């Protein structure tokens, strides 16, 4: 064991040090020589990451956001983070005040939900930005590699870990036709023996796109048909949505290419019930019951590596594969997309609430 360890350590040192050794030979001996060779050094307003500053941002910084940035000398960003904290707390209080009138909760529910979730998101987001920005320093994240143009074909599989769902395996094919400004995406989610199926058509456009993929505003509609031959019902749903994505670097320089995202949706759903649990009503059969819903997703997106994009969201959406963690909360969604080749992405989506769901997919560029 110890021999292997020694050999391993030696090899590791050799691997790590070899390039450095190679560089040393060509490296200038003094700072002046380096400057003469074109080295500019780090700009004064872009400090390096700080371990102590990061720890300060985690600890006392949770209560006073911006402490980490303040420690590293970026007072302007520290002030913005503090404002973000106060604004977030204010939104939470405003949401609570709206919700404090239960007799009007039916009308004001979506408003209070939006205020509270946005406030919590802003509060936690400004704290997280302080922590990440202080640890990381001014080095920007990698460019966003999430696809935002081009036609693709997706093939996926979803596992639903929910004890209430007898049918847990789903096939998830999709086709995306995306010109950049407008897009259409027909998709399906089908249980292998066809007893549970979902068909959806997303249509949308991006009225505003930043020069990179880090900023955009999108609006769209989603038409959906669910059919359950296990429980004897079907639904027809139409949902309108608005989503935006903003590079946090516009506000906090150290968070360049780290985007915050938000999505709002309002939908109407018509339910049709079969005469028996195995009977699925026809698509144009009479509606037995109609109901509307509101959903909200807040999160952030960034590239964890040059070709690997990560999106993390807190979602309140009663139409997703698994229920929320509790009656008063939502669920977490993590979407991971790795551009394996220029024409092939590997996608992974994890939902965690009252149960969990994992989806694996391959996306081929057409």
């Amino acid at each position, binding site marked *: 064991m110890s021999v292997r360890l020694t050999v391993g350590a030696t090899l590791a040192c050799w691997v790590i040090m070899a390039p450095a050794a190679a560089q040393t030979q060509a490296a200038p001996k003094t700072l002046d020589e380096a400057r003469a060779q074109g080295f500019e050094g780090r700009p004064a307003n872009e400090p390096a990451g700080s371990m102590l500053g990061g720890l300060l941002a985690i600890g006392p910084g949770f209560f006073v956001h911006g402490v980490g940035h303040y420690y590293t000398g970026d007072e302007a960003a520290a002030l913005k983070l503090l404002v973000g904290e106060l604004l977030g707390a204010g939104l939470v209080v405003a949401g609570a005040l709206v919700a404090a009138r*239960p007799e009007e*909760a039916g009308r004001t529910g979506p408003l209070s939900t939006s205020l509270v979730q946005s406030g919590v998101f802003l509060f936690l987001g400004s704290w997280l930005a302080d922590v990440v920005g202080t640890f990381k320093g001014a080095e920007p994240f990698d460019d966003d590699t999430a696809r935002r143009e081009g036609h693709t074909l997706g093939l996926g599989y979803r596992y639903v870990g929910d004890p209430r769902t007898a049918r847990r395996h789903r096939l998830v094919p999709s086709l995306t036709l995306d010109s950049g400004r407008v897009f259409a995406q027909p998709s399906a989610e089908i249980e292998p023996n066809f007893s549970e199926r979902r068909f959806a058509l997303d249509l949308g456009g991006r009225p505003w796109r930043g020069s990179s993929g880090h900023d955009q505003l999108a609006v769209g509609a989603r038409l959906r048909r669910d059919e359950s031959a296990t429980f004897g*019902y079907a639904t027809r749903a139409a949902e309108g949505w608005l989503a935006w994505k903003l590079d946090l670097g516009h506000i906090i320089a150290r968070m360049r290419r780290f985007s915050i995202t938000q999505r709002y949706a309002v939908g109407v759903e018509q339910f049709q019930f079969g005469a028996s649990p195995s009977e699925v009503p026809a698509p144009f059969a009479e509606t037995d019951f109609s109901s509307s*819903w509101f959903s909200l997703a807040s999160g952030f997106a960034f590239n964890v590596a040059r070709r690997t994009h990560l999106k993390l969201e807190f979602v309140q959406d009663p139409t997703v594969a698994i229920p929320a963690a*509790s009656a008063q909360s939502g669920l977490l969604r993590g979407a991971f997309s790795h551009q394996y080749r220029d024409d092939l992405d590997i996608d992974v989506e994890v939902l965690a609430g009252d149960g969990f769901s994992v989806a694996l997919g391959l996306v081929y560029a057409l």
Partner: protein
Amino acid sequence: MRCDALFALFALAALAAGCNRAVPTREAAIEAARTVKLAADLSVELDGALITTCPDDLSTPAGDDAPVVCVRLTAFDAELRIVDTGCAPRPVRVHVANASADAKVAWRAFRAGESTARAATRACCETLLQPDADARHPDWTPLGPEAALDGLDARSCGEPRGLCWTSTTRPGTDEAWLTPWRAAAPAEASDAACVSLSAPQAGALRAAPFVLAQRVRAPLVPQATPDGPALDFAVVGNTGEDIAALEGLVARVNAEDVPFVVVSGDIAANGSEEALDRARRALDALEVPFFMTLGEKDADGADPAGLVDRFGASTDVLLLPTGQGWQPKVVLLDSAEGGLSAKTFAALPDFLAPGTPPGAAIVVTHTPPFDPAGLRGAGFKRRGEGARLLAALSRAGVAAVITGHLNEAGADMQSGVEVVHGGARHFVRIRVNEAGRVFVQRSD
């Protein structure tokens, strides 16, 4: 490399063990409360009742070491069975909570089996020969007719909604008897008698467990109304941490002529022991039995066994026997987590199936399947589950669904099912008649 692989495997195993650890549920707690083992050869099984903690002020005769079993009724026709595979006479003191003022106690002893000849007689000519069989336990052998316990003896503890007595089983002589709570325990029988009576020569039937089945029945009396005979009951709930509001509702219900109360949940602040105890004390002031399903405020962080101990079964079917050829039922569905459990969904067809005798089905559940306000989203957490429940309710022809959770009172039709939202601090009076019609009156 091998070490890394082993470490990874260990980590995965630990993760799997962690993810698969058994989480205590209220359903498991309800199942666990349906039986109790008092000794290696003595146990108690319950139908329509659950084991509960005995009242603090319950006293037993000095020097008495007879086991005490405390139960809480969850039905109007409950059976408490003492299963004794021993021989010598043994007393068990039984305390019953949540009983109607007019509940009657009767008992009958059985051998939990039958002789070959009796089984053959039943199989060929049951209608013609009519062997002495019990409707509830047709394949058991009764050891005598059903006997009633005197009402005064059954109430020897002096509690308005409590019954108590002492049961004694003596399998060695196929005897059993019920006596008042404070009756002295019988003396030990000689071992000789036991050996002779439990010997294999005594036959296969003798080897079957001796069962003392004690029934507590409280038939409900329909009231005459312009729409025919009908049963009334009250639904209260949604008082949250306002214990004074709950006490006020209890006082109002006591002033009404209703035979029982259903609590629709959210009567505690946050599932804390103190809040649940306060709520239970307030409900104990009711003069009639109560049955309860839970809301998220009751269940949040609460010990499942503690909830079952205090409030009984949060998912249950409460049959309402009228003794007049019709029998409505109240189906309690625990939706405290914003949906039903997998087990409840699986049992739903049985819960909602037409009964014998027939009668309307009324569902009481805390969270409505769908929020009538839509965008607020205060219905089930996942709309697919709301649709699943509503489809089942609609197909079963459920007469009405009574919910809590929402602070605004109201009613709406969801796929032909009347869904009544009790609102905050509600008191809803329900009347169900012989024809299966349900009348809902909100009492503000």
